[in-house]
């Protein structure tokens, strides 16, 4: 082991000098180093998550106390949004549409794929950088431009997009300028993900270290590889749809405008002949694979954390990999289960509900494998592990509540109710976002050379877990009672909703509590950069290749080119002196250690 710890000192200094030579702008802003780009992605993604969450805390005020003026902050937002502090319906719609857009396209995906993928993947495969560093930089800046376009849209006349994150036509076609900004923003984001996904796939195929055959890849790398294929192939149809919607909005065409459409009592000035359903098909052709873009990197992160903290190999690693590919393939032929209500016919509905039931199988396989991996392990209950452990039942709830929605008959009473909101938030919020937190706590030492505080981490975890369930569990109750989503007053104008509406206050208080529970994380994050406990290259006693690099890794990552001698999860191998056998440990080193 000792030979690995001591890198040739002069070489390290040389690298350091070269790094310094680049100057501030090339080193930290327009950097081509995958680690810097990964951190840029992660920090920008975290800020967008915070902002998107901020939008929803405002919405929750309106839902808990419809029409009541919000003290001081309400007045700050001005008369076009909250005159006298009471929220306008138009502003509520903007918040809703932008919350979804920001969380999905500018928060979770950039953090999970752009952040973790960029930082961890090249390290885990023993590569000096991504295959195309300049394209990597372009990918980040395209994402940045897209994000700024979206933010700027709040300030154009009429405000931001307000047709939901799904931007259903024809509503979105006749909406204000914010929608045009939304479409341009999306085109930037799609470009960014295209550049990023090509880079990830080429890097994984080409830059694997010596000895790192495909079935020695950590599961995280597999998850990023499959995710990249989803991004590569599913996003272009949305780009096509975006171009067509731009044509409708700016060129006066009628791709999504039916004949004889009446808006506010007047016949719309479109020639018609288009098909609003076409938008839905193109949108969901992206957006269902997008669900797996949100969840697969989370599976990857959780697998790494669980194997490391149970000190056991993953149970069923190969089956998990096959399941990933099966998910990837199936996710392209389930999209219309979002559209059972559009009158597309029972034959189509039957096809899509069948494929939907089939796609649940590989998800269950992966989740079961992760649960079984816990069996008989001597578990370390560190902060990353707590988040990873919480991910399992939370994602389980999210997944299982999705089954009734995938059956066209059961979907009828549940469609577009709060039940749907509860279902997908369980998948993404206490599911994916918890996994992302696990990843942050897990790889923070690699990125900074210091650990995050365990005490603050637990202070972050437990309240978050309680509050997040306080938000989303009552949504199932509301949904089963028939309360629709996207109601400006939260359902107060419907008599049948009255018996369950008191839950709105409970959910709102939970949401604000969840916001407060993030404070320990923010403090922890910034404090630990400067004051966290210093660590060596492998503080978690992990087995994968990123832990062979110094913490933080220098420009070019490894002091000597790493070689993989074995599979990724050789924990507690009988006869080995320690309970972990790293991939980078050669037989000779193993004999002498």
């Amino acid at each position, binding site marked *: 082991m000792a030979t690995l710890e001591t890198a040739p000192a002069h070489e390290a200094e040389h690298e350091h000098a070269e790094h310094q030579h680049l100057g501030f702008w090339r080193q930290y802003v327009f950097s081509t180093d995958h680690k810097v780009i990964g951190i840029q992605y992660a920090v920008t993604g975290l800020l967008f998550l915070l902002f998107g969450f901020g939008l929803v805390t405002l919405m929750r005020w309106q839902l808990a106390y419809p029409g009541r003026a919000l003290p001081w902050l309400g007045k700050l937002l001005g008369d076009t949004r909250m005159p006298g502090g009471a929220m306008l319906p138009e502003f509520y719609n903007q918040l809703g549409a932008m919350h979804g857009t920001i969380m999905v396209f500018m928060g979770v995906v950039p953090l999970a794929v752009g952040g973790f993928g960029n930082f961890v993947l090249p390290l885990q495969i023993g*590569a*000096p950088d991504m295959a195309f560093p300049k394209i990597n930089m372009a990918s980040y800046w395209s994402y940045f431009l897209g994000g700024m376009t979206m933010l700027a849209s709040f300030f154009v006349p009429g405000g931001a997009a307000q047709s939901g994150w799904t931007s259903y036509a024809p509503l979105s076609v006749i909406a204000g300028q914010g929608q045009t900004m939304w479409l341009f923003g999306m085109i930037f984001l799609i470009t960014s993900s295209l550049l990023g996904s090509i880079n990830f796939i*080429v890097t994984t195929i080409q*830059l694997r270290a010596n000895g790192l055959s495909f079935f020695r890849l950590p599961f995280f790398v597999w998850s990023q590889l499959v995710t990249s294929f989803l991004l590569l*192939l599913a996003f272009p149809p949305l780009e096509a749809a975006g*171009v*067509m919607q731009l044509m409708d909005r700016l*060129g006066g065409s009628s791709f999504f405008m039916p004949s004889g459409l009446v808006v506010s009592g007047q016949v719309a000035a479109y020639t018609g*002949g288009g098909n609003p359903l076409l938008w839905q098909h*193109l949108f969901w052709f992206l957006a269902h694979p997008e669900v797996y873009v949100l969840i697969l990197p989370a599976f990857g992160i959780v697998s790494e954390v669980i194997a490391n903290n149970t000190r056991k190999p993953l149970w069923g690693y190969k089956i998990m990999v096959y399941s990933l590919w099966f998910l990837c393939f199936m996710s392209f032929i389930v999209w219309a289960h979002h559209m059972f209500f559009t009158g597309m016919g029972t034959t189509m509905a039957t096809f899509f509900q069948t494929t939907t039931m089939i796609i649940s199988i590989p998800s269950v396989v992966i989740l079961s494998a992760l649960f079984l991996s816990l069996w008989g392990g001597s578990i370390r209950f560190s902060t990353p592990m707590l988040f990873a452990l919480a991910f399992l039942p939370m994602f389980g709830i999210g997944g299982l509540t999705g089954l009734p929605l995938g059956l066209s008959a059961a979907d009828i009473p549940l469609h577009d109710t709060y039940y749907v909101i509860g279902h997908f938030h369980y998948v993404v919020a206490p599911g994916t976002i918890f996994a992302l937190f696990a990843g942050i706590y897990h790889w923070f030492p690699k990125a900074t050379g210091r650990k995050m505080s365990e005490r603050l981490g637990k202070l972050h975890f437990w309240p978050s877990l309680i509050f997040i369930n306080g938000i989303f569990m009552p949504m199932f109750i509301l949904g089963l009672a028939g309360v629709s989503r996207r109601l400006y007053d939260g359902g107060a104008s419907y008599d049948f909703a009255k018996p369950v509406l008191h839950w709105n206050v409970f959910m709102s208080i939970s949401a604000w509590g969840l916001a407060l529970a993030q404070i320990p994380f923010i403090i922890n994050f910034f404090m630990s950069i400067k004051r966290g406990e210093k660590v060596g290259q492998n503080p978690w006693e992990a087995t994968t290749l990123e832990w062979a690099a110094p913490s933080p890794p220098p420009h070019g990552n490894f002091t000597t080119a790493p070689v993989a001698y074995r599979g990724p999860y050789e924990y507690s191998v009988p006869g080995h002196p320690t309970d972990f056998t790293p991939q980078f440990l050669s037989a000779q080193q193993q004999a002498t250690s």
Partner: protein
Amino acid sequence: MEIPFTVAERPDTGLNNGKIGIWLFLASEVMLFGALFASYLMLRIGATVWPRGDSILNVPLATVNTIVLISSSVTMVMAWASLKRNDFGKFRLFQGLTILAGLCFLGIKYVEYSAKFHHGLLPSKNTFLAIYFTLTGLHGLHVIGGMVVNGYLWGPGAKLWKTDPEHFTNRVENSGLFWHFVDLVWIFLFPVLYLL
């Protein structure tokens, strides 16, 4: 550490990085144009009336354009083959011809577009014209993109030939792959929009 396999092939995959990258990019382009062709189908099936392409569009001009674009694919291959034969002068010639063919294509497209605009045949007129302008417009943007890259490799980018001829040849090959794809899209566009 240098990034490996930017020029040389990785032994176990038999490919260099750029080659995989460009094929992945083309896969995503297939999905982009595929979505638009699928939209064309759905719109046409749902329409009560749908004009035949040749009743509105100029088929002779488009036929000429098809020939121009196919010829440019041939010169593109010749440009790459010249580099493989170490004949840089021939490369300049054929690459230049490829770019000229692209210009010629855009010129004819401009004549077609301005005739349509002149007669008030705009995307707002009907869905057929809307999909016509969207598909050919997006294709035109791809032609321009391909010409920019080819122009760069013909001009300032050609300096790489002196220092790293293999790397330069690979770049020409990859930009050629893109150019053939753009050509192929037109070969689908032409019958679908103009003849059916």
